[in-house]
Every structure is written in structure tokens, then in C-alpha cells.
């Protein structure tokens, strides 16, 4: 009746929010490799929009449940939209954090000593992009693959940590930069986790299976 | 067999046999009538008048008289009765008037028919000066039929589901429109059934017409409302009580009775048929 229309509307809003978040993350991380004087400002604009979408989606999900008592697939979808909405907002926060660290690193080319970071960045961005694609296409298989990639990103994180420890011991004067780089790595790892969440939620919505807190599936 | 089923069977048999007894009475009644009066029945009997001091001939004037009296009575009683019932069920205010009317109607319904005859005589024949005539008799019979028609019509109107009335009023119809467009058409078959049954009753009444309409012998058929008439029930009475040649006249009386009886049977059958076909069409 009314509910398919409401669900479609919610999904559209969520995808709009997702695309904004994806851009935010890419934009902020690119700031490491390509100078961008307006980075904070641009990221700030995106963040405002994402926050307002988050509130709108939350309120519409509540209304949809209160007014329409959705069942089965509709219920899973609305609940997962609610959760993914939450994750997207946090992803946005991660992007802002990265941007702040990038600004501090401006003009200091320390990042060139850390080639693994580029690889980690690519992996995290891939996870994010795939998880959002999987949700849009209701593709549980693709979502499953995203969950597997989480280990890769975690490995990168550990490697970067070890490398940074060596770099710090070798050149304590650059400690501030190295710590910012560590933070960025942490943010990227968090982005990987949040993408995994999104993927798990997608599997639950599409197939009704709960795969979180399990090692492999 | 269990005691419950035995009891059931016994009850069924008892009721069945009572039904048979009733039917048997009717059958015997008809057989007796036929045996006493069947001999005089013929086409001539129905189409010619009495001859030879009522020892020969037929009952045409009486037949016509009964038909005219009945028609006049229904012509007056039906509209009056239906309108009264409509007023009682839809407008009925003030309450004391309604109560008064109901008492009047119920009293009339229980009044012995001879009193109607006396009343008719006092009012129509004497006071209004209409003399013994079709008019006086018809009006008297109308008053006789009135309470039955009012009660029957009221009943018919009450069986119209109140939802119809609500729907009609909610669509912006006045009470009058609701009555004429919805309630009466819906109740009409039942009103007609009651009217038809009244006809049967009115046709057979003797006492009300004895002092107001009938005469022992009329030359020809009535030519106007002020003429007196012969009538079937009165004809029977007259032949049996004032007949001068019983040997010839008693069979004629029984023959007349048969005609009257058959007339009532036909009317009742029509009423039953009308009610049956309504029930089949009705879907609520």
C-alpha cells in the first residue's frame, strides 16, 4: 500500500547520504597526496548535509514503523536502513578526523616514508565502496566479500603501526607527524570496521542471516 | 433409542397428527358444503339473478354487491390506514396523541362486528341520512377494516431495516421523501399482503352490512352509491332465516356459502403467493 513508496523514499535518502559520505572520505584522504587548501571547509559542508540527512532518515524510519507496522522484508529493510544511517554518520566523522590530521601534515612530506598507507587507503576505500554497492544492489555475496577484506585492512594497520614505531625511534623530531599518520591509519581501520557493519546489515536485510560476531561465514 | 430421540419422535408424531386433524376438519367442512350446495353451482348460478322468490336462478346481484361493498371499503380504509400507520411510525408527536390513537385502534380491532353494524346505522344511515345504501355499508366496512390495515402497515413499515431510513436522510432527503421513495416501496409487498387479507375478511362480514347496506331482494344491479344492495353473506343469512321455501332455498344458501368460501380461499392464496414471491426476491 503506502509502505513500498515510503521504503523507496528511505532507500533513496540513504543512498544520497552514502554517496556524500563516500565523497567525504575520498576527499579527505586524497588531501594527503594532493594539496587542498580548502579541505576543512569542503569537508565541513558535506558534514552538515550528512548530519541533516541522518536526522531526516531517523525520523522517517520511526514514522514508517509507527504508522505502517512493516513485516518481514520491509521490517528488516527499515531497521537496517536505521542502522546503516548511524554507521554512515560515523563514517562521516572519520572523514572529518582524517581531514583534521591531513591539515596538520600540510607541507610535511612524512607520508612518503609510509608506502603501506596508500595500500591501506585503497583497501578501505574499496571496502566502503563495495559495501555501499552491495546494499544498493541487495547483493549478499558482495557483502560477504567485504567482510573478508576486513582482515586485510587490520593487517595493514598493524604493519603501519610497527613501521611508525621504527620511524619514531629513528627520528623523534618528527613525532607529531608520525602520530598524525598513526591516527589516520586508525581512522582508516575504523572505516573498514564500519563498512563491515554495513555489509553485515546488508546480508541480514537481503537474506535474513545474521553474520556478525562470527569469524567467517 | 435414547430417551431424547424418543421424546423427539413422540412430539413430531403428536404435532403431525394435530395437523392432520385440522386439515381433516377443513376437508370434512368442504365436503359437507359441497354435498349440501354443490348441486346448485353452475355458470348460470353466478351470472343471473334470483328468480321465483329466490328458489331458482343465481346470485349475481349478491356477488356484485359484495364486490362493490368490498371495493368501496378498501378504497377508503387503505389510504386512510396506510397514512395513519405512516404518521404513527414516522411523525408520532405528541406522545399523548400517539397513545390515544393506539388505544382507539386496538379497541376498534377488538370490537364485535355487530356493534359496527349498529354504529354504522346510527351514524351513516340515520344521522347523515345516507339511508341503507352501498355508501353506508362501504363506510362501515371501512371502519371495520381500518385497525387491521393500520396494524399491518405499521408492522410492515417496522420491518423495513432502519439503515435504509438512515441512509436516505444522510443523503439529504426529507422525511417525506424517505417515506415515499424508500420506506413505502420497500414495505409495499407486505402492506399489500395485509390489504388482501383484509379484503377476504371484509367480504365475509354480515353484521356490519345488515343494517347499513343490504336488502333481501334487489330488482337489478345497483346503479349508484345510494342504492341498497344484496351481498353474499347476507344472502346466506336471509335465505336460511327468512326463506319461504327451504327445500329449494337451503341448497342455494349452501351454494352461496361455497362461492363465498372459494372467493376467500382464492384471495388468501393470492396473498400467500405474493408473500412467497417477495420472500424469494428479498435479499436482506
Amino acid at each position: 500500500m503506502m509502505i513500498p513508496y515510503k521504503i523507496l523514499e528511505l532507500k533513496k535518502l540513504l543512498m544520497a547520504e552514502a554517496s556524500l559520505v563516500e565523497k567525504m572520505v575520498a576527499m579527505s584522504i586524497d588531501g594527503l597526496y594532493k594539496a587542498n587548501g580548502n579541505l576543512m571547509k569542503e569537508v565541513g559542508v558535506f558534514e552538515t548535509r550528512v548530519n541533516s540527512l541522518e536526522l531526516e532518515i531517523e525520523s522517517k524510519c520511526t514514522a514508517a514503523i509507527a504508522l505502517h507496522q512493516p513485516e518481514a522484508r520491509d521490517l528488516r529493510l527499515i531497521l537496517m536502513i536505521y542502522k546503516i544511517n548511524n554507521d554512515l554518520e560515523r563514517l562521516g566523522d572519520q572523514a572529518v578526523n582524517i581531514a583534521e590530521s591531513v591539515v596538520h601534515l600540510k607541507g610535511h612530506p612524512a607520508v612518503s616514508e609510509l608506502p603501506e598507507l596508500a595500500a591501506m587507503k585503497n583497501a578501505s576505500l574499496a571496502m566502503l565502496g563495495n559495501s555501499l554497492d552491495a546494499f544498493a544492489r541487495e547483493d549478499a555475496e558482495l557483502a560477504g566479500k567485504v567482510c573478508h577484506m576486513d582482515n586485510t585492512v587490520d593487517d595493514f594497520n598493524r604493519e603501519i603501526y610497527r613501521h611508525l614505531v621504527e620511524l619514531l625511534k629513528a627520528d623523534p623530531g618528527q613525532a607529531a607527524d608520525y602520530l598524525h599518520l598513526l591516527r589516520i591509519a586508525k581512522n582508516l581501520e575504523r572505516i573498514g570496521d564500519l563498512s563491515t557493519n554495513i555489509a553485515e546489515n546488508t546480508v541480514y536485510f537481503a537474506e535474513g542471516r545474521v553474520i556478525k560476531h562470527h569469524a567467517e561465514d | 433409542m435414547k430417551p431424547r430421540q424418543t421424546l423427539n419422535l413422540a412430539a413430531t408424531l403428536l404435532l403431525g397428527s394435530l395437523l392432520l386433524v385440522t386439515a381433516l376438519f377443513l376437508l370434512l367442512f368442504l365436503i359437507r358444503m359441497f354435498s349440501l350446495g354443490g348441486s346448485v353451482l353452475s355458470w348460470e348460478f353466478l351470472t343471473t339473478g334470483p328468480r321465483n322468490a329466490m328458489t331458482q336462478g343465481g346470485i349475481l346481484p349478491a356477488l356484485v354487491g359484495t364486490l362493490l361493498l368490498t371495493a368501496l371499503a378498501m378504497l377508503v380504509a387503505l389510504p386512510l390506514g396506510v397514512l395513519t400507520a405512516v404518521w404513527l411510525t414516522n411523525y408520532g408527536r405528541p406522545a399523548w396523541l400517539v397513545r390515544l390513537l393506539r388505544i382507539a385502534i386496538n379497541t376498534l380491532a377488538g370490537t364485535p362486528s355487530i356493534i359496527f353494524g349498529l354504529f354504522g346505522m346510527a351514524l351513516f344511515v340515520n344521522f347523515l341520512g345516507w339511508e341503507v345504501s352501498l355508501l353506508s355499508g362501504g363506510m362501515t366496512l371501512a371502519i371495520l377494516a381500518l385497525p387491521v390495515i393500520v396494524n399491518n402497515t405499521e408492522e410492515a413499515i417496522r420491518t423495513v431495516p432502519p439503515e435504509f431510513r438512515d441512509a436516505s436522510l444522510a443523503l439529504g432527503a426529507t422525511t417525506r421523501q424517505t417515506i415515499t421513495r424508500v420506506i413505502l416501496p420497500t414495505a409495499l409487498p407486505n402492506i399489500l399482503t395485509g390489504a388482501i387479507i383484509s379484503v377476504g375478511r371484509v367480504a365475509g362480514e354480515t353484521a356490519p352490512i345488515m343494517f347499513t347496506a343490504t336488502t333481501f331482494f334487489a330488482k337489478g344491479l345497483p346503479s349508484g352509491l345510494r342504492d341498497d344492495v344484496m351481498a353474499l353473506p347476507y344472502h346466506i343469512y336471509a335465505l336460511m332465516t327468512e326463506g319461504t321455501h327451504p327445500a329449494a332455498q337451503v341448497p342455494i344458501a349452501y351454494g352461496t356459502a361455497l362461492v363465498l368460501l372459494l372467493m376467500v380461499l382464492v384471495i388468501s392464496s393470492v396473498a400467500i403467493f405474493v408473500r412467497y414471491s417477495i420472500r424469494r426476491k428479498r435479499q436482506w
Partner: protein
Amino acid sequence: MVNPQIQAFGLNLWFGKNQVLNDIDLSVHTNKVTAMIGPSGCGKSTLLRCFNRMNDLIPETRITGKVTLGDRDIYAPGTDVTGIRSQVGMVFQKPNPFPKSIFNNVAYGLQVQDAVKNRSELADRVEASLQAAWLWDEVKNRLHSSAMSLSGGQQQRLCMARALATSPLVLLLDEPTSALDPQSTAKIEELCLELKNSVTILIVTHNVAQAGRISEYTAFMYLGELVEFGTTEKMFTVPADKRTEAYLTGVFG
């Protein structure tokens, strides 16, 4: 943006000595669906029937206060009640088509008001009403057959067509689907969502989920009082009154 089509101001109603409605202030917004919910006996049907003066039919009814349609007080002395009723249509709980043909049922409201002079215009308006009620396709080939031959859901849609024929401003629905099966119910609910664009709808329902599905505004009544009125979305997520919350969460009613 408040745009009320029909309003009650300080409305009180007594049946004999019994006060059934207590100081009701209600604004029904134009071209929206407003639901009235509440436990049995709260007075919602009675209030509904005030809007087309159907309570006048119940003896010993006394009303104080004002009820306006547009800017007219419908209880003002000398008001043409039949005129009000052709502008405020009503559909009842149990489908009640007349024992007439489908055509004559729909035409009835127009005929009693003598609103349409020629037959072809009448036929057009009957068709338009049946189309609006989503019944035309099912009955277009048997307009002159008896309305009683339709199923329950069809009969109720016929009653809606009948009420719509006079082009009313407001349509009052008194638990219109409580006697119907789920499919017919769904159809009528969707019909309401469509109809609200041309007529203001006020629906009494004992089914809270139904109110959630189709109404933009909801009025909650309890013991003859209007406890709360607002957008359905707000009332169903954050009701302002504890009694409303108790009713919605099934504590009583």
C-alpha cells in the same frame, strides 16, 4: 497551515440527562484524512454524527456549542438540514444500499435534491461517482440489476459512490471497514487516500493501525472528551497525553 473545512467549538451533547460529549474543540483540515480513535463508548461516532446533524434523529438530544461548515454554523436556527446533509456525506458501518438498482442507489441523492434535470447528465454523474469509488468497471454492465446482488465490499463502495454523487465537501465514514474482509478493507483504505484530494475525509475507526495507515491527522477521544489532536505521525511516536499513550500501547481499549 491550518485550513479547516469543518470545525466544532465548545460542543457539548446530552442524550437525555447523560452528557456524552464534553466541550469539544476540533478542526478538520480540508482535503486531508482525519481519523478519530478511542475506546468503545468514548463518543467518537456521536461526534461524527454531529457534523451532519444525524443526531437530530435521536429523541431527547440536546446540543450546545457551534459546528461550522466553512463559515456557516450548521446548528443555527432555520438551517436547511437536508442541504447540509447533501454537502456532508456519510458512509455507515454496515453497508446499507437501498433495495433498488445500482443506478438508482447512486442517483438517489441527486434525485431527492432535484439537482439534475436531464437523464443523460444524471447518467454521467452516476458513472463519475462509480468511477470515483472504483466500482465502475465491476458494475458498468449491470447498472440496473439489484444492488443487493453485490458482495459486501462492493456494496460498501456503492455506498461511497452514493455519498459522493452529490459532490459533498466532507465525507464522514463511521467504521466503514469493520464489517469487511481484509482485501475489501485494503481497497477502501486506498480509495480514501485517493479521494482525499477532492473531499475532506473524517473517519471513525477502532483499528489504530488503520488510522496509522491512512490519516494525516488523528483525534483521540476518551469518555466524551477530545484528549489529543495532532498529526498522526507525531501522535503515534510521541503522544502528548499519557492517556493517548496508554491507549496506543494497548493498556486499555
